[in-house]
């Protein structure tokens, strides 16, 4: 019973971490209807940056979080203004070209990271102790990361639904044309969304590298994982992504405990295939029609 409860708590906490890694992708998809294939590489870049800050300057991942997020914000802004905004085609052709551009971007980011940090796995030893809550022991690092993740997710949610800027982003997500005819500067909003989504990837990386070791080639897997989550939740659907993240966290923790770590690392791909075959519209999504 205690094992079961512990696994549930761990699963929910890991769900928070996964949510943090996927939320930026969701924000970008929501506004621009585009999957940033470099998302995972942004996470790795943020993580490795935090690693260097820890090694050279002794900064903890929590202190590195705003720095990594800030840097990735700038990178995201540059990518959006310099590359993605330059694609003027509309409709499927525009989406396709944007996707191809981010495909190229993922190689640029991953190999730039490789030049700077090499191909070793890196991690930050941080908060290695455990918190005892009654009979359940929870790793401190996981708890902190997960709480931060929920905090960030909540902040973004409040920002999107309660502030004028957030509502403008929301409006652009639903209809760019409608938003533009209401006088919103949708170019600025898209840039803001992409930069913010990238910042969330970078920040997530800075925290998560203390839980999971990264190497420069991890990016692709993280992109697939983040995409699986937001697809499972229904692309662009925030509560859906949260639900999906918790489900994935629980499934992984239980699989890890009962079937071992090899099986656990395959879980995300099994979910991925399942989503593609059975529910491309996501758990909370609706079926589109011709």
């Amino acid at each position, binding site marked *: 019973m205690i094992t079961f409860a512990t696994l549930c708590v761990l699963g929910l906490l890991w769900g928070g971490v996964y949510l943090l890694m996927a939320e930026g992708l969701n924000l970008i998809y929501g506004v621009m209807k585009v999957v940033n294939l470099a998302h995972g590489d942004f996470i790795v870049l943020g993580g490795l940056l935090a690693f260097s800050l820890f090694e050279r300057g002794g900064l903890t991942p929590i202190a590195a979080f705003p720095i990594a997020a800030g840097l990735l914000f700038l990178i995201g802004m540059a990518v959006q203004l310099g590359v993605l905004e330059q694609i003027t085609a509309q409709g499927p052709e525009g989406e396709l*070209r944007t996707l191809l551009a981010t495909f190229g971007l993922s*190689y640029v980011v991953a190999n730039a990271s490789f030049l700077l940090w090499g191909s070793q796995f890196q991690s930050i030893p941080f908060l290695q102790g455990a918190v005892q809550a009654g009979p359940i022991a929870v790793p401190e690092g996981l708890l902190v990361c997960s709480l931060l993740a929920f905090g960030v997710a909540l902040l973004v949610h409040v920002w999107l639904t309660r502030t004028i800027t957030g509502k403008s982003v929301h409006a652009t997500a639903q209809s760019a044309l409608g938003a533009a005819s209401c006088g919103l500067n949708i170019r600025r909003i898209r840039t803001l969304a992409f930069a913010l989504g990238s910042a969330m990837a970078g920040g997530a990386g800075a925290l998560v590298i203390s839980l999971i070791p990264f190497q420069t080639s991890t990016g692709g897997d993280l992109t697939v994982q983040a995409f699986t989550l937001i697809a499972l939740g229904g692309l662009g659907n925030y509560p859906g992504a949260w639900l999906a993240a918790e489900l994935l966290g629980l499934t992984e923790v239980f699989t890890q405990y009962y079937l071992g770590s090899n099986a656990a690392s395959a879980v995300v791909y099994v979910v991925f295939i399942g989503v593609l075959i059975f529910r491309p519209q996501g758990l909370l999504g609706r079926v589109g029609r011709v």
Partner: protein
Amino acid sequence: MRDRIIEWSGFALVLTIGIAIAAFGSGYQAQTLFTAALFILLATGWNVISGFTGYVSFGQVSFFGVGAYVGALAMIHLDAPWYGAAAVAALGGIVLALPLGWVMLRLQGIFFALGMFGLARILQIVASSLDITGGAMGTTVAVADSVNECALVMVLAAGAALVGTYALMRTRLGLRLMALRDDAVAAQAAGVDTAAVRVTAFCISAGLGAVGGALYVWNVGYLDPNSAFNGTIELQTVLMVLAGGIGTVWGPLVGGVLISLLSTALWARFPMEQQIVLGALTMGIAVAMPGGIMAALGRIGIVRRQPICAPDVAAPAEAAPAAEAAARGGGPILSCRSLGVAFGGVVAVKGVSIEARPAEMLAVIGPNGAGKSTLFNLISGFTRATQGDVVFAGETLAALHPHLLARSGIARTFQTSRLFRSLCVWETVLLAAASVGRSRAAAMAETRRILAEIGLWEQWADLPDTLPPGRQRLLEIARALALRPRVLLLDEAMAGMSAQEIERVHAALRGAMRRGCSIVAIEHVLPAIAPLAARVHVLDFGQTIAEGVPHQVMNDPVVIEAYMGVDDQEPVHGAA
């Protein structure tokens, strides 16, 4: 003709240089050539599914990897020579692609692209954990006798793939691939079995990728999961097609030669930065020159795509064959019995019963939102009815795919024209004419006859974008008529046409009716269709409100009310 000379002399030149290097070059040169030719082969395969068919994949390397493993196993366990291994690998790729295509190709855009991306990673994990593949440590096979032999084989394989694609894109299958890419719904309406076409393209693409993998193993003699499912292969493949021209026959060759030279030079000087440059180049091309080099050449009038099965323009246009004796009267060819459908809480069509008789036109009119187009979607199979049924030629239609309905004689047009942007007038009509089981020659003759009849023959080589809106509508009607329909559903076909064009359409429709075709025409306003219509059916809010002969319906107070309203309490805002 000039274009064809440029194409083939360029191809022959590159092929000759390739064979010469393979035969007489040093080991290093031959190895570089081998790699370049391998990528051209992979790029050609990727181009078939992603360029011509429009399903962009980021996991073509999956088939390369599977082909490499199948080829390696064939060499180890069956003692197969290289050609045997390549053949088995191709088969392996196709066997994998068949079920995979069935699942994956139902996915749209991003899902397919990322599904394939994920597939490569899944296969890499599988290859790492199986014993038969040698696990993560990899496996070794007997290497080829000489690099030059490898290079020669690879050059010939890539050349054969290119010639094969060229031939493919001159067949009716090639026509269907492009129609599917441009507009899947319109392709179904033209009788194209889109699922079969997609899976066929996917299998061709997979087979080419797998052959590349098998020959790669033969060349290097060693295989592990990292090299079999290497993301760099994916990047170079995609980049080559983009640079050369996505969706063109020669794009993979042009891009392949250029990018191979570039990446070899980069590898020699800046091995660490090579992939950054290639990635940045991919971004740059996606942003700045999406059509690649071939599109740039096309813009200045060199090496444009030639129409498929082009007609012999010199031959005189034949007169329309004598109309077959039409069976007038008799029972209805198509009847809908209390047909209805609801979307969520909105009832779009409710209890509508119509009958279409051979050689006669039924007009369906009604105000905006009356459910006219939805009724057509129900009849032509694009939307499933939630109540009632459709009886066509004495048989009840149940859940048939749109393309089967189109082939069996229910043709339709769309309210806003849906034409194929890369198919010319001739190809658009030929596509439909060829999908009802005619021979190539018969389909071409039929296409010619219809274009002459409807007055589009002069513009046979024009792309739809260059036609005025009225002509675009004519083309859509021509496409529907090419299916030799027994029931033709026209959805506001006469909207936006000049008086002269309307006259042409009327003539073509009279001709079709003389051959016994039944026509159901939706119009927003009756006069455009009244001269031809025998009967009129009026819908409002998804239900039948009147039916009868035209002049009687037009004077029916219920119909006038539906269009004009009778309630004087509402202020009148200009147009009704």
